[in-house]
């Protein structure tokens, strides 16, 4: 491990009984980097985070955070990290301020700066006017913001965010991201996040795409998108199967099936569209051209859309909310 790598993972494996949730993954994260884990439900993202945060023991392999071994130097690792869990972890019978105070105490923040830090954190997530309200009465987004503020209270070296914006509205998501990006520049915090929102993953400097416990690609968002050759054409026709056959015969091109439309990878999309419209015998309903997204990368690598391999994100949000509202 070099000095610059704040997280280093080597051949990490985690099994639950016979089932392998994390299957021999290795990667490094540099200090100050935003590193994203992108993958469908059950890919092993949270399991990896739990191991890096010392909540779970690795079955085999080795991982260090801030230079400390996650299995043998747990105390030092815990001192170095901040965490926002996928599931809610606030005490909702306490006020916002009391939650932060508890955190400040167990992280040994000196009494002289405790109050200042709590004020600062509450301001940052715009909850300072609600500081004395019981958390139970907060909305989902407010709870999430409070959790993020709490994760940062002790100025961690590495911030782990497990689906930080799941179930939040776009404005709140943007605000949280503005804040995280600003924080990275100001404090040089390393951010490790998991997500299955494609647009969110774009914020990362580097992304590991994880599927079924394995890392199947790891690079910058742009380089990953370059793996998909050129542009993407979304094509809807009256008979997609017939159109796909026709395209493969005429242009020797593989059209993939994506949710009631066909996806084509082409080098020069804007020149290809007129040709296609002119030549195709199957009637076209709609056609559009776009730059590849990370979704296309996942599709190319696994042959499945991320959406196909998971419950719909609406469902995930609902179950998240149910959990929030249980007490």
């Amino acid at each position, binding site marked *: 491990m070099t000095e610059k790598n704040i997280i280093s993972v080597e051949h990490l494996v985690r099994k639950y009984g016979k089932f392998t949730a994390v299957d021999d993954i290795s990667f490094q994260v540099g200090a100050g980097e935003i590193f994203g884990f992108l993958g469908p439900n059950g890919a092993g993202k949270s399991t990896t985070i739990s191991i890096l*945060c*010392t*909540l*779970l*023991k690795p079955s085999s392999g080795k991982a260090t955070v801030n230079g400390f071994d996650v299995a043998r130097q747990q*105390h030092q690792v*815990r*001192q170095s*990290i901040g*965490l926002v*869990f996928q*599931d*809610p*972890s*606030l*005490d*909702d*019978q*306490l006020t916002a301020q*009391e939650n932060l105070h*508890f*955190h400040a*105490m*167990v*992280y*040994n923040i000196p009494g002289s700066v405790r109050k200042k830090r709590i004020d600062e954190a509450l301001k940052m997530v715009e909850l300072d006017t609600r500081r004395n309200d019981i958390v139970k009465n907060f909305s989902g987004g407010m709870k999430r913001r409070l959790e993020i503020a*709490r994760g940062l209270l002790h100025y961690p070296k590495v911030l782990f965010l497990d689906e930080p914006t799941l179930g939040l509205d776009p404005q709140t998501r943007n605000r949280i991201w503005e804040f995280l990006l600003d924080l990275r520049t100001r404090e040089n915090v390393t951010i490790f996040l998991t997500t299955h929102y494609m647009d969110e993953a774009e914020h990362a400097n580097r992304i590991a795409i994880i599927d079924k416990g394995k890392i199947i690609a790891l690079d910058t968002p742009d380089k990953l998108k370059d793996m998909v050759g050129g542009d993407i054409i979304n094509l809807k026709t009256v008979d997609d199967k017939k159109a796909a056959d026709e395209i493969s015969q005429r242009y020797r091109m593989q059209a993939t099936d994506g949710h009631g439309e066909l996806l084509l990878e082409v080098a020069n999309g804007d020149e290809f569209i007129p040709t296609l419209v002119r030549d195709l015998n199957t009637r076209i309903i709609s056609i559009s051209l776009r730059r590849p997204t990370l979704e296309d990368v996942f599709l190319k690598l696994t042959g499945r859309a991320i959406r196909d391999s998971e419950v719909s994100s609406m469902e995930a949000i609902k179950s998240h909310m149910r959990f929030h509202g*249980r*007490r």
Partner: protein
Amino acid sequence: MKTAIAIYTIWYRDMLRFWRNKTRMLGSIMFPLVFLAVFGSGLSRSMGMLAPGVDFAKFMFPGIIGMTVVMSGFMSGISMVWDREFGFLKEVLVAPISRVAVAGGKTLAGATIATVQSIIIMALAPLVGVTLTPLVVIELLGLTFLVALMVSSMGILISSRIKSMEAFQVVMQMVTFPMMFLSGVFFPVNNVPDWLAVLVRLNPASYAIDPIRQTVLQTVQLPPGVPGLSSLGLTVFGHTMTVWEDVGVVAVLAAVLIAAAMWSFSIQD
């Protein structure tokens, strides 16, 4: 020092929650209160004296104090299972504090809450014609806190293995009911069938109830010529236990259970 702060912080949070949620307090003293109301209302007079100067109400009152402590002491475990179920435990487990401090803080909080609840019962002493002097109250507080520590660590120990609320509640019932019914809360433990006598003496709660009863009953005015109330005391192998001997048994058990709870809670997946 850091561990002491961590224990205090965890204890303090549970106190806040307890204070915010006073209705929950009612849950664990309801049962004792009903007993007191029924037997304090005169029913016990019709049942005659268990010893000179001691009617059933006076006999049972200290038992009810003990029972309150046993029932609410286990709430430590419930609190731990709640924390796990609602995610807060993760926040605690990922903090740079030792598992020992977490288990210790939770145990102490449970014991404190149980002691506070026993004070409510003590305040009802006049209902059954018992007058507690300040000195007796202080002695009782010491005793109930020790007993509460023992029970509370039992709760934490169980919660470290049994992680769902449903399962924990079943286990809690399975443990507390025999503990109460086989401890001399409801009947004098001498002159009972042999099998019962054995079970009573194997029950940790018996050694918790006995000193509380001895301490409360020392306030009873004995009729002239009656040497004492040892006939109501717990005997082991023919020896009548003194308060200090009982305290010794409870203290050892409490120490073993706390150590076991801390150890069991520190085991990691």
